[in-house]
């Protein structure tokens, strides 16, 4: 401070209206003032309009009975609006999570196929990517819903796949696990087995880093996991049982039911997002320096080893940030469920508003829910990214 003033020379300082430091602050104050003024004006309009129409401006409506039921759930019309939102949030989360897993898998397969030596495979993957990437995801979802899922045979003529699945236009019923006495305890043991397996795998990795002897960590993990889970299964005496769907006239007993809307959403989101992920995978593999591949071949690695141990680990590092973006897109696109009536959080909000509940609060809540989803995904992927980033000098 002292030095600056001395350099300026007290008398040489320009008048405030020409002093760039003053002008900078004045400009920012002006801009913030304009934005804040505009915001206040709009919010003022909003509240006065709401008051005049007698719409409440608080969040009290959340605890009132919803007045509508949600299909395929235990939610009844006497439950509160907040509970309806919770059902919607859970559905969005389930749909996005399953969608991300399948889209990632399909995307990697198609992306690798686009680089195949096999002309037929390469071209087929290219046609898949170039056609699905350039069609709106909403059109794909609606197509799967109206032109595929709803055109399946009715439940009377449902196709039964070797007794494992019953598929009709009222959804697919898939095999599931059923509580046969001590499911909760058994779940606990499964989790314990997973943790123990992960710990052993970690120890094997440490040992491998130290001594260089083969780690076989996947085998060790699987071994520990199955020993713990199997022992628990035997000791608890069949705590859970497989439940296969059995069709009897118009009802299907057993299994877990996947509503047609969910199936259409899932397939639409997965095939669309996979086409984008495939491009990311292809780009990342191409971005790995060619010399790496050539060196691996020169060392005598097979095609599979080259991909598994040399190319993919490096490509994976490049693809995390754009993949994270696609995961976010899939989660946000799950809101398209409003068009086919799957009860995700956006559809539920739509129903809530149509029941006469205040729209501004509902939409703010909806935005907050999606922001939380987005932030969670960003947090997870950023953590993975940080751990994967190559530490350079």
């Amino acid at each position, binding site marked *: 401070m002292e030095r600056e003033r001395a350099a300026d020379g007290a008398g040489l300082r320009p008048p405030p209206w020409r002093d760039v430091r003053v002008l900078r602050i004045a400009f920012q104050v002006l801009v913030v003032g304009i934005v804040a003024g505009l915001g206040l004006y709009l919010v003022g309009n909003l509240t006065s309009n709401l008051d005049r129409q007698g719409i409440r401006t608080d969040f009290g409506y959340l605890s009132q009975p919803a007045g509508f039921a949600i299909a395929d759930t235990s939610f009844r019309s006497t439950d509160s609006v907040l509970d309806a939102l919770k059902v919607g949030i859970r559905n969005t989360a389930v749909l996005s999570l399953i969608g991300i897993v399948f889209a990632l898998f399909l995307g990697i397969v198609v992306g690798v196929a686009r680089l195949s030596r*096999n002309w037929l*495979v390469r071209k087929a993957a290219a046609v898949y990517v170039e056609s699905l990437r*350039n069609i*709106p995801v909403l059109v794909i979802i609606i197509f799967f819903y109206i032109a595929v899922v709803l055109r399946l045979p009715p439940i009377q003529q449902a196709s039964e796949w070797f007794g494992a699945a019953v598929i009709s236009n009222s959804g697919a019923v898939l095999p599931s696990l059923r509580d046969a006495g001590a499911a909760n305890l058994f779940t606990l043991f499964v989790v314990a087995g997973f943790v123990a397996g992960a710990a052993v795998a970690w120890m094997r990795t440490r040992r491998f880093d130290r001594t260089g002897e083969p780690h076989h960590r996947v085998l060790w993990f699987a071994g520990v996991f199955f020993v713990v889970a199997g022992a628990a299964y035997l000791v608890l005496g069949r705590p859970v049982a497989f439940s296969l769907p059995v069709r009897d006239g118009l009802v299907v007993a057993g299994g877990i039911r996947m509503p047609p809307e969910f199936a259409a959403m899932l397939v639409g989101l997965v095939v669309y997002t996979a086409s984008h992920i495939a491009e990311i995978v292809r780009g990342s593999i191409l971005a790995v320096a060619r010399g790496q591949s050539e060196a691996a071949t020169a060392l005598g690695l097979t095609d599979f080893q080259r991909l598994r141990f040399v190319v993919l680990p490096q490509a994976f590092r490049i693809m995390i940030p754009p993949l994270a973006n696609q995961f976010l897109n899939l989660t946000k696109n799950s809101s398209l469920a409003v068009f086919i009536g799957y009860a995700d959080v*956006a559809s539920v909000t739509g129903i809530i508003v149509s029941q006469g509940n205040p729209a501004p609060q509902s939409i703010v809540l909806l935005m907050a829910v*999606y*922001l939380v989803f987005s932030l969670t995904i960003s947090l997870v992927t950023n953590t993975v990214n940080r751990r994967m980033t190559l530490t350079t000098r």
Partner: protein
Amino acid sequence: MTALPEETVRIPNEALRPPVHARSPREWIKENLFPNAFNSVLTVVFGAIIMWAVVRTARFVFVTAQWSIVRANLTNFMVGFFPRDEIWRIWVAMMLLAVVTGLRWGSGGRRRIAERTPQPLRQSLKPLWPPALLAVAIIVLSGSAVTAGLITALFLAGFGGRIAGAALPQPIGRWTGVALAVTLVVAYVLVAGPGGSGASLWRGLLLTMALAAAGIALSFPIGVLLALGRRSSFPAIRVLCVGYIELIRGVPLITLLFMAFLILGFFLPPGAEIPTLVTRALVALVLFTAAYLAEVVRGGLQAVPKGQIEAAQALGLSPVTITRRIVLPQALRAVLPAIVGQFISLFKDTSLVGFIGLTELLGVAQQVTKQPEFLGLGLHAETLVFASFIYWVGAYGMSRASQRMETRLGVGER
């Protein structure tokens, strides 16, 4: 540098060239389809699946599909309820646009490079195959010689413009961009102005194209300003821009459409006229796309070397001139493919406006199946396939055009 002895320098030209090895079809098949056991199995299995898919698709397109629903509603798909007597306005507007777009394409705009070798006609026709395919499909479906003639005239107008544009002297060639903007306004007035039909009554492809065009024109400047704001040296402006961008990017477009539909009216002063649905949809699309564009442009701004700005400052250029003449041209060129990618997203996102009650291309595809003569026939697949084909032509065409522009501007090379 001392000259090397003649003998060592002179290598016969033939030895420098790589040997040319023309592969016979047999070798090609061996190399690309049956290089080893695994790939041979893959080829056989995949070949069977692809054959099945191709046969199924061909059977649907040429045999089982009842295209009568699309044939009967072709005009509805294109322009909705636009007064049938006034459709000449749309044709005239398209002709004008075709000529001026051709002019701009041929003149190469401001960036014409004198030494650029003119492309052979075949090469420049190649990117036009998706629209040409659509044109053929429309002509076949309409079965009308008038439509066929008009569409052919449209293509010819474009090419005529291109040839004329290539012959334009440079000073005039620069103005083709302005001419294009003016023509867009003229086209809008012609279609929506007196005698025509206002934008709030538009439907079908017309609405889709109008929303996409207006959305691109409005979101681009806003996106650039937001990106500049995010990189600004004023902390307050930076915070405002970051807040806006991250908020919008964290929520789906549906929530903005919800807002535009349900509560935009509440934000206006009492007694004010509530904007039309088209305006509201456009506001949501523009606000949404601008945030994504801002992030893309920011990437470009970060790619401009600092030395460029410092050199410009050393030359005494003002900050505005530096941004306009030095930073932005380089930044936008660097991220051109991603910008076009956002425009493609916007084009695809227009399919969501059906949520607030507008009937664009997808809306028409769903509504025509409810017409009395087609109700209950389950012809959804036909209409949806036709609609998605049009979307595909638009999006794929744009991505191809951006790839061509990329090579022409030498992105990643200069």
